């Protein structure tokens, strides 16, 4: 089924026939091939697909950290050629700076944001650390935090500067179920209140259905779009909602049918 019928004029992020290859040790790898996609302002887009289908690559391209080999990526009509403060990335591996404590890590992006006083920056950093449940850990250095805590600090760091576009690579994968369920609610709140555009990668179909306006299913070798699902459930959505579970089951079935052998980690 096609995406929302949308004219390109009001769509914010436009990918047209994007192809990206890597010349790695194992030869030329086509990470993504011929991807065309439009992400509208204020849309929550979720990318799912088996490991190695180019999800992280796609985020790097959107962030401007990598350049396309073919095709184009445009933000508000201008080519994306370099990283910018309007598109923050939360990386798959936690990229916290080991020489800064948790609060300073969250402040890093805020300090680069003009037009704020130092007090406002500190207040914002504390607010987001509190949101992810780490108010008491602001003086802790990354090595003193657990894997899940580090991921939560990274989440706070990417939310704090309040970017227009948020690119998140499996942000909840290392969290316990309870924290995760709470953050699903918080992310949706931030998303609707702040009118953000979010592109999120996940391996969890239920999470995808809970959060996304659209779920894009990618297939590997080379990474291509296989199918796009529109999720029209009302927000805020709860992960335990039966309607959501039914939809997730449908997508999982469709996915299994697409892939000759269902890949691990996709349920």
């Amino acid at each position, binding site marked *: 089924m096609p995406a929302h019928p949308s004219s390109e004029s009001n769509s914010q992020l436009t990918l047209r026939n994007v192809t990206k290859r890597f010349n790695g040790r194992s030869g030329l790898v086509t990470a993504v091939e011929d991807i065309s996609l439009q992400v509208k302002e204020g849309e929550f887009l979720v990318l799912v697909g088996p490991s190695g289908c180019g999800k992280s690559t796609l985020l*790097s391209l959107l*962030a*401007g*950290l990598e350049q396309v080999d073919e095709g184009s990526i445009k933000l508000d009509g201008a080519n994306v050629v*370099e*990283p*910018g*403060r309007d*598109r*923050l*990335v939360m*990386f798959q*591996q936690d*990229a916290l*700076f*080991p*020489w*800064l404590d948790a609060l300073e890590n969250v402040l*890093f*992006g805020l300090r*680069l*944001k003009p037009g704020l006083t130092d007090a406002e920056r500190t207040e914002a950093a504390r607010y987001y650390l509190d949101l992810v449940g780490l108010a008491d850990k602001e003086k802790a*250095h*990354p*090595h*003193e935090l657990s894997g899940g805590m580090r991921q939560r600090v990274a989440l706070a*760091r990417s939310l704090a*500067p309040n970017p227009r576009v948020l690119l998140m690579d499996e942000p909840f994968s290392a969290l316990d179920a309870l924290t995760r369920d709470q953050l699903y609610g918080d992310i949706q709140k931030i998303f609707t209140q702040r009118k953000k555009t979010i592109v999120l990668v996940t391996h969890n179909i239920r999470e995808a259905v809970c959060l996304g306006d659209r779920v894009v299913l990618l297939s590997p070798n080379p990474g291509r779009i296989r199918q796009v699902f529109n999720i029209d459930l009302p927000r805020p959505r709860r992960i335990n909602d039966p309607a959501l579970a039914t939809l997730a089951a449908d997508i999982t079935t469709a996915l299994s049918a697409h892939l000759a052998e269902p890949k691990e980690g996709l349920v």
Partner: protein
Amino acid sequence: MKSPRALVPIVIGLLLLGGWEWFVRSGRVDDVLVPAPTQIGEWFWSALRDGSLASATWVTMRRLMLGFIIGAAIGIPVGALCARSSLARDTIGIMSLGLQTLPSVCWVPVAIIAFGQNEAAVLFVVVMGTVWAVVIAVQESVLSVQPLYLRAAMTMGSRGWHLWLRVIFPAALPGVISGLKQGWAFAWRSLMAAEIFVVILSGFGLGSLLHAGRELLRMDQVVGVMLVVVGVGLLADLIFFSPIERWLRRSRGLER
């Protein structure tokens, strides 16, 4: 646990000194060639009293500090430049790699011809001894900064000087510090070489004191100065480099 560990080297040291003292006093060796610890102690005491040891140490430390600071001040930015530009790396970087292996005594003849027997010659030798090791260490540690940190910082809007000062330099700091430590050791060695070979009228350093001891055939003075040289090196490590390295390891969770 702490006191026995500190006691062991003291006890063993005292035993060795006692054995040495006994060996020399028993008349088995000529005490002009092998002075007893007490003889060295006597020289040490008299050199302290007439102020010659303090003034020599002061002259040497001043040269070392100045040479080391100049060497580091040149080496750090040049190393950063080499990490940034492959042109600089292929020229200055390779030259530094080569010159780093050159024993610093080799700079003494160059310095004497270029500057004459003066303070500038000594300083030149110390700077040459320091700078290449620092350049190489800074270049290598900047090049091995995790790309993920740079990517993360760049998406948060960090560029140029901000990226260098807030991300690249802190990330490379452990490597830079060990490079400085190495530079310090090289500076110390080259300074001793310079002080022994460059005989200057102004400024009588520890190396000159060592040299004078040789000319007077005073083994007690020679050994005494050598001990002071060892002591200065050890002290620099204990009060300067070790605490910095320990702090770095602790704040990044690299402590074993």
